[in-house]
């Protein structure tokens, strides 16, 4: 790809996301799509984090823990301390990042299914902690969270108070889409920089990486922190949309879904988690009219997709000849 086609391509995508889709929604009157797409954007941010841990060779089934944590940090700050949502958003991410350092240092030594397992347990630990901690309001959750307020700089309103909007849906849509674009631009940059190569070297052989002087422990933690940061951001925004957060807002099922999004999109492609989330989450919604057969149809389609494209949906476009199979036909 030349530089110009790249710029044109990026411009086109931005235009579709920021202008095209809202316009289409206005024309078609499908206002419910705002929320669905907002969810897709937020969930794909969290999935993007999981994807990054895949990129250093770790199967992460613990993103739900950080999404939950992010949601609570933001909710508590907004409700109990009156902090502006806009400030709590980065704080939630950073808080999750900080916690993930503490958790990551011991657990990142684990590999393969062991890491997967321990993160799965982490999700449950997070849920139980939110039930038990004194500050989280326990089983009753935190409800009635105010909508994000205005952001003003020198009297200039940069972002209006969401509560004053006649309809907060588009506002949340823009917020989530912008976050998603930033997140994936960052990931794309990361993966295509030398940092990405280092991550890949970790994925392929940690011993060798350390023998050529890569500080693998540090790099692993860095990737995990970024991942958890993204999880926290996604969770915090969700809390703002539903104006409530409960210990069950993000559970093991979510952690598993984040991971599945990455698989479905394709582990080898930065934008994989985005596409995977779109298909998995949106697909379920699309099938809602099939009633009791929804799960059956959904899972059948899913299995068919995996059988057809075991390396992720994006492998369709980029696929080279598949891995040579062992044995004769």
């Amino acid at each position, binding site marked *: 790809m030349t530089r110009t086609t790249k710029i044109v391509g990026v411009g086109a995508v931005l235009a579709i996301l920021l202008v095209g889709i809202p316009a289409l929604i206005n024309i078609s009157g499908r206002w419910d799509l705002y929320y669905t797409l907002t969810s897709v954007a937020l969930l794909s941010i969290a999935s993007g984090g999981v994807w990054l841990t895949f990129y250093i060779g770790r199967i992460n089934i613990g993103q739900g823990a950080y999404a939950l944590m992010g949601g609570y940090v933001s909710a508590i700050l907004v409700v109990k301390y009156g902090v502006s949502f806009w400030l709590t958003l980065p704080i939630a991410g950073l808080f999750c990042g900080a916690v993930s350092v503490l958790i990551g240092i011991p*657990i990142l030594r684990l590999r393969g*299914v062991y890491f*997967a397992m321990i993160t799965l347990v982490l999700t449950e*630990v997070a849920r139980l902690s939110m039930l*038990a901690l004194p500050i989280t309001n326990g089983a009753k959750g935190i409800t009635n969270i105010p909508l994000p307020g205005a952001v003003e700089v020198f009297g200039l309103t940069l972002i209006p108070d969401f509560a004053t909007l006649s309809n907060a849906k588009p506002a949340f849509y823009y917020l989530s889409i912008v976050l998603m674009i930033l997140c994936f631009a960052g990931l794309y940059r990361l993966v295509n920089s030398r940092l990405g190569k280092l991550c890949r070297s970790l994925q392929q052989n940690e011993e060798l990486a350390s023998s050529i002087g890569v500080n693998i422990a540090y790099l692993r933690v860095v990737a995990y922190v970024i991942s958890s940061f993204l999880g926290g951001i996604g969770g915090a925004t969700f809390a703002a949309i539903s104006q409530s957060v409960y210990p069950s807002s993000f559970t*093991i099922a979510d952690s598993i879904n984040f991971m599945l999004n990455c698989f479905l999109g394709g582990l080898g492609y930065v934008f994989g988690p985005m596409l995977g989330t779109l298909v998995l989450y949106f697909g379920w919604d699309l099938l809602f009219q099939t009633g009791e*057969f929804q799960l059956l149809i959904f899972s059948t389609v899913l299995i068919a997709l*995996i059988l057809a494209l075991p390396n992720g949906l994006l492998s369709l476009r980029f696929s080279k000849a*598949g891995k040579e*199979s062992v044995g004769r036909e």
Partner: protein
Amino acid sequence: MEQVLANGLYLGAQYALIALGLTLIFALMNVLNFAHGQLYVLGGFVTYTIYGQLEMPFVAALFAAAVTLALVGGLMERFLFRTVLKRSVREESTMLLAAGTAFFLDAIILLIFGEKQRGVPKIVDGVFNWDFRLIMPYDRILIGFLAIFAIAAFVLYMQYSKTGRALRALAQDRVAAQLMGVNVDRYSMIGFALGAMLAGVVGGLLVTITGVNSGIGGPISIKAFMMVMIGGAGVISGAIAGGFILGMLESVGLSVLHSYGDITYLMIFASLMVFLSIRPQGLMGKPWG
């Protein structure tokens, strides 16, 4: 205390049996079978239908559950996992397939057997009561022993039968096993079927005690993962150890931490995390990268 230990042992026996099938499939094909719990549920429903509904003998029902599940497992391997394993770049991709299969089985089970909790008549009546120090209904004792018997039979089969040896070889080095004349496709299928069958047998055994419910597959799978990890993934003795440890941990933990109430499980899980970070390969697992 006697009660707590007996509870732990009984729980451990059933957990170990659940974990065995999962670890076998994992060892053979590096597939973390998210659908394991669903296979368990299916085994439970087959038993429920034949023993509970059609009122045929329990043994026949258990046998039918074993056969059905072996068949389902074999089909899953043949038509789903084999294809994906051959064509995927990263082996973990089968996790998505396993999850998809779990959804699929969930859907089928829900459609066929409904959303209600189901149970069957007791297989034996009466309660063993040692002066209220140890109370154990006879059916639990029977099921506990059947579970231990099944575990022993499986271990002996793996250790001393030709098929068992081939399965172990396959788990350790596929290519080398192939070069010894093991038909990899066939034995992968056998192994998968065996793993699924074990899940079905536990489901069938336990339906007499705890009944069965279309929705519990997912939670059961997750619990089974924990047992497998505690003991060490892909190691048969590890799965057994993991099952018993988790059983004991729950039983003893619930008793000892009783006064802490709400955070009992938080402490159990947190200690599990600490344990795994100290012993990254579980109790007896081979290192895994």
